[in-house]
């Protein structure tokens, strides 16, 4: 057995610094490194328990003596296996092996020379060994990066955690020379490999990304992720006309999971353990983090994003992006572009725009005109209805708005209410009433004594400019029509305009999120008078009496 033969050679210098000199001599050590024996390192057909044991032996052997270093090839070979369990075992083994080697410092430090050059050169045996081992480490990392795309999630997860462990160890025992005292070193290359693996253009990595999210709690990882991600994203469209949706999804997932701390403070929760933190390092300053954050997002949003991703970005924009940017006004380009798209995207862009207008002095021409243009029948049926009306309420809460504008909004909303479902009506009717309450000049819409009787509604629904819509000359007949609505609560809400409006506004916040199902449940639970009224005309069969519509248009057979 060759394995046993190889075991005997380095037996004498297995331990400690005492053996270092001996190893330095070009002796048996060099010769022992030569053969990349792919032979039967282990029995493939054995069970997983045997495999684990065998791998364990190999790792022990490599760690025990440098002479057994060739066993690394066996381990790496298993890493290439097709079988999922074997791969997992191999990853565990690699993790142990290189983890120990990194901790021991048995890998070459500094810019890595090519393998052949070193091995053929006249360097010391120890250097040769270290360079050789570093190359093995390199190939192991590459393989792990490839495993991030493995179909099995367990393998992916394991590969990720192993890579992160290497990142940690490499950070503690850097593989490059510090340029000066207290230089901050981080395994950028390895980490780029990880981030690049996460941002795969091929498939959706959301599960893996959610695993990765826990590393993002560490400040240094977050910082370097932002850097790596912004690089990756920036190079996304290089040489590719069409970037697949999966990449954008992955990128968004990763970017959105980066969340900076709200308040200033020392960033001290580091993944890579440092004995002392230097104030000179960029990574400890929140300002630098913000810069990186901003750069990352700007590079991401620079691209022509798919509409769905765009919506997702807009949804989290006001809450998790804008507050952390070093210079929020840079977002203006993206938001204006989104606002001009129309439809739901515009609705969502409103929120970010509002923050910019409100907090960062953005001057936005024709804001209300555009807002007015956003009001179309679909506004009551979209998913973001609650958010939109919350914002609309905010925008129209100013008492300095001109009356014609508010009247145009009220009239437009009333017109749209004619097509709205009951849950939206329950919200929009108090909304309109609130508008009238805030702006007494608009009360003519519901109260115009001695006004002339008109032939047609003077309001022009097709006019885009609220100033030209002649809403102030009109009345809210739509609300009068809605008093005949089939749902009692809607009818009651619409009847509020019959009386002079009460002074305090009705808070619409609890009405924003209401759904039809909630109304349904509420109606079911409501207790009426003690007895349930019954139909007194006796039933005549399933389709009812002859004059019923069902009987007219449907037959049983």
């Amino acid at each position, binding site marked *: 057995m060759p394995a046993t033969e190889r075991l005997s050679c380095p037996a004498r210098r297995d331990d400690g610094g005492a053996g270092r000199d001996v190893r330095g001599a070009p002796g048996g050590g060099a010769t022992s490194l030569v053969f990349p024996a792919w032979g039967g390192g282990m029995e493939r057909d054995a069970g997983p328990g045997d495999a684990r044991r065998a791998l364990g032996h190999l790792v022990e052997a490599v760690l025990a003596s440098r002479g057994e270093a060739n066993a690394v090839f066996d381990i790496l070979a298993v890493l290439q296996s097709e079988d999922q369990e074997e791969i997992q075992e191999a990853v565990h083994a690699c993790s142990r092996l290189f983890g120990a080697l990194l901790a021991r410092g048995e890998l070459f430090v500094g810019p890595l020379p090519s393998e052949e050059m070193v091995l053929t050169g006249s360097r010391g045996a120890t250097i040769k060994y270290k360079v050789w081992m570093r190359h093995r480490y390199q190939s192991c990392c590459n393989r792990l990066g490839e495993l991030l795309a493995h179909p099995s999630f367990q393998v992916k997860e394991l590969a990720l955690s192993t890579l992160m462990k290497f990142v940690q160890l490499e950070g503690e025992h850097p593989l490059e020379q510090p340029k000066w005292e207290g230089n901050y070193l981080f395994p950028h290359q390895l980490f780029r490999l990880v981030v690049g693996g996460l941002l795969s253009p091929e498939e959706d990595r959301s599960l893996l990304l959610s695993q990765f999210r826990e590393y993002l709690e560490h400040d240094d990882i977050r910082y370097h992720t932002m850097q790596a991600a912004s690089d990756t994203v920036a190079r996304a469209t290089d040489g590719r006309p069409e970037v697949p949706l999966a990449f954008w999804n992955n990128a968004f997932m990763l970017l959105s999971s980066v969340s900076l701390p709200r308040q200033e403070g020392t960033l001290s929760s580091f993944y890579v353990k440092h004995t002392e933190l230097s104030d000179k390092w960029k990574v400890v300053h929140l300002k630098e983090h913000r810069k990186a954050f901003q750069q990352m997002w700007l590079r991401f949003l620079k691209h022509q994003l798919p509409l769905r991703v765009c919506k997702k970005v807009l949804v989290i924009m006001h809450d998790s992006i804008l507050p952390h940017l070093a210079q929020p006004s840079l977002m203006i380009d993206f938001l204006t572009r989104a606002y001009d798209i129309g439809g739901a995207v515009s609705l969502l862009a409103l929120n970010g725009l509002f923050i910019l207008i409100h907090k960062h002095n953005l001057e936005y021409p024709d804001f209300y005109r555009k807002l007015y243009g956003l009001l179309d029948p679909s506004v009551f049926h979209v998913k973001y209805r609650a958010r939109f009306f919350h914002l609309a309420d905010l925008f129209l809460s100013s008492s300095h708005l001109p009356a014609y504008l508010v009247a145009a909004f009220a009239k437009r909303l009333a017109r749209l209410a004619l097509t709205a479902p009951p849950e939206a009506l329950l919200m929009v009717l108090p909304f309109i009433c609130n508008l009238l309450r805030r702006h007494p000049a608009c009360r003519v819409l519901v109260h115009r004594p001695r006004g002339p009787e008109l032939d047609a509604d003077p309001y022009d629904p097709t006019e885009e400019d609220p100033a030209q819509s002649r809403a102030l000359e009109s009345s809210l007949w739509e609300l009068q029509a809605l008093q005949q609505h089939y749902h009692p609560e809607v009818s009651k809400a619409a009847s509020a305009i019959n009386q002079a409006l009460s002074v305090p506004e009705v808070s619409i916040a609890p009405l924003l999120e209401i759904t039809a199902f909630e109304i349904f449940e509420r*109606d079911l639970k409501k207790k009426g008078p003690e007895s349930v009224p019954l139909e007194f005309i006796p039933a005549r069969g399933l389709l009812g009496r002859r004059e019923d519509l069902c009987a007219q248009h449907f037959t049983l057979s």
Partner: protein
Amino acid sequence: MGKTRSAARGKASAAPAGPWGGRARPNPNPFEVKVNRQKFQVLGRKTRHEVGLPGVSRARALQKRTQTLLKEYKERDKSSVFRDKRFGEYDSSISPEEKMMKRFALEQQRQHEKKNIYNLNEDEELTHYGQSLADIEKHNDIVDSDSDAEDRGVLSAELTATHFGGGGGRLPGKATQQPGGGEEPPKSRRELIEELIARSKQEKRERQAQREDALELTEKLDQDWKEIQALLARKTPKSESGGGKEKPEPDAYDMMVRELGFEMKAQPSNRMKTEEELAREEQERLRRLEAERLRRMLGREEDAHSKRPKHLSADDLNDGFVLDTDDRRLLSYKDGKMNVEEEPSGDTSGGESGEEEEEGEGWSEGAPEDSDSPDSHSDLESDAGSEDARGPDGLESDAEGEDASEGPQRGQRPSLGERLTRDDRAAARAELPYTFAVPESCEELKSLLLGKSTEDQLLVVERIQKCNHPSLAVGNKAKLEKLFSFLLEYIGDLAASDPPELGVIDKLVLPLYNLCQMFPESASDAVKFVLRDAMHEMEGTVETTGRAAFPGLDVLIYLKIAGMLFPTSDFWHPVITPALLCLSQLLTKCPVQSLQDVVKGLFVCCVFLDYVSLSQRFIPELINFLTGILHMATPNKQSQGYTLVHPFRAHGKNSELLLVSDEEDMATWQRRSLPLQWAGGLKAQTETEANHTRLSCLAVCLALVRRCVVAYGPLPSFHDITQPLRALLTEHLSTRCCPPTLQDLSRSILTEVESQPRHCRPLVCEKSKPVPLKLFTPRLVKVLEFGRKQGGTKEEQERRRLIHKHKREFKGAVREIRRDNQFLARMRLSEIMERDAERKRKVKQLFNSLATQEGEWKALKRKKFKK
């Protein structure tokens, strides 16, 4: 007497006021008055102590002490004390007279107890003014006492004047007379009194004689009456009571007469009502129900006096009085079945459902014991017969009372009878058992009903209802309540089956309606339950995908049935309002993806419009849906003048679902109703059939649009509501892609829309009462004690008041004690002084006597010497 007493009391009350009532005296000695000067005048304050009389009050206090404290002091060393043990001696609450009476009584008692226990005969003689009372009693006549009694109340002016006038002079009456008739010489007082006495005596005598006469006469009359009384027949009890006091012995005849009199008489019953009257009553009932419905539709609060709607009372069914021709036959048939089939079509006289049950029980009990003895059966039969005879009598009055609530039943009976021919029923009867237990679960009901024909199923349900009528047993009500929900579930299963058995459902609606009338609460709960189920299912899919597929036919049928069981026009109704929401959700959340969905959607629209057919309420979702359907049938999609909302899309996979381009199919199409089965599952069709279906759907859709246009015409912004429909219809017409009938229909709709007037009257709020200005009414705080802080709650104030009072009392008590001590010290000092003075006086006396003695002795001695 009274006068003197009052005078004495007056004096008594005046007397004590003398020494200390300083203020009452007109001229107090100014040197005795101490004035408490007030610094400020405080308005409303009552001043009680502005003037004090220190001298007077000191004297009063001293007197009081001498009376009480001094006495005690003097008796301080005495062990025995003199006590007056006479009754009531120290009790001031008893008046002296009473005191004397009690003492006398006590004395008598003591004597009686001690000496006279054995003295039976000797009774003490009671006297009145010296005369023996026994004597007076003996002389007394009853009549006399009467006259006395008469005199007692009389108190004329004359009498009082003569008795109590005093010796003053003449009577005032006589005095006035005097000047008129001045001839008579003035009589002396004595004469006057004598005259008076004489006159009164005479009057007395006359009255006595009169009374005696009357007494005699009545006695005579009594005797006469007694003589003829026997001859008289006893006519009325009145004369009896009027005539004499004693009652004759009641004889047997009397008793019988009285018994008969008290026995309940047969009252005349109401006459049978004529057809017209019945019709009028029915009309009246319907009118009342309609008024009630209108009230609910407008959402007004129920009036206090309005009662439960009459038709609600299920008592009509509860009393079990149903003149059902079949039940009697069932009963006899059952007996016949045990023996031989002798009387398959027995008498048709009314039997009640109740006896069927009893009969059944009786039979099952009797059968194992003596199945071979014919007697038992005859017994049973006779029993049943007697019950039969009794049954209707007892229940007739009930039935009369609930005449009104029989309406629904009457309506239903003939229709039932029409459908089921006699033969069918007889055949069915031959197979089905007659009693059914109420199924405990839906599965049980299904096992009962499945596989039977429609009529049989109906019959089974009917029998279950009858056998377990709530009037028959206590638990039946709860069981039948459950039956409703089982039936509902069964209907749902029928509708979900493939193909849906709509015919059975159609028939089962009737029992469902009847059950609902009997148990409104449980029925509404059951319907709510199925609705909630359907909505939950939909909610789940909507939350995950944002939309939901149209539900199965069962949900649609539930919704339809809910509309038949409950009044749909109510402003708010515990079942109908959720059902409306459910319909709305179907129209807004379910995208139309196939022809089947179109049929379902149109059915939902029909149900929805039927719901609001009376109340004419506005349904935005319906307009949207119809717009969407029309959009699907319109070829070119410029989408001018209308916007589609959520479930529909202007462009996309299904945006031309209803478009028919085949000219031939268009020509061969004939308008007919849509079969409801298609909603359950659409069979694969040929292209022509599919096209025909499309056109039929379009026709229905247009008819619904027309209905909406007619219904919503009066709404204020009608033209804004129908604007998308109008735009679509004009476009539709312009493309000429549908059969002429439909084109005509669209055209007529358009003209209908245009013909609606545009009334745009500016809105005006109702005038509301002006809000009154806020008034500052003063806050009223009850003043309990002046000069104290007023804040705090009532309890706190009370507490503070009590503390204050206690403090004052305490101070007062301390002061009193101090004064007492001072008084006692003074007394002691004066005693000592007195004693000392006495001793000094005595010593002086002694010295005096000794000095004289000495002097005498010396004088004597001197004398001796001189001698």
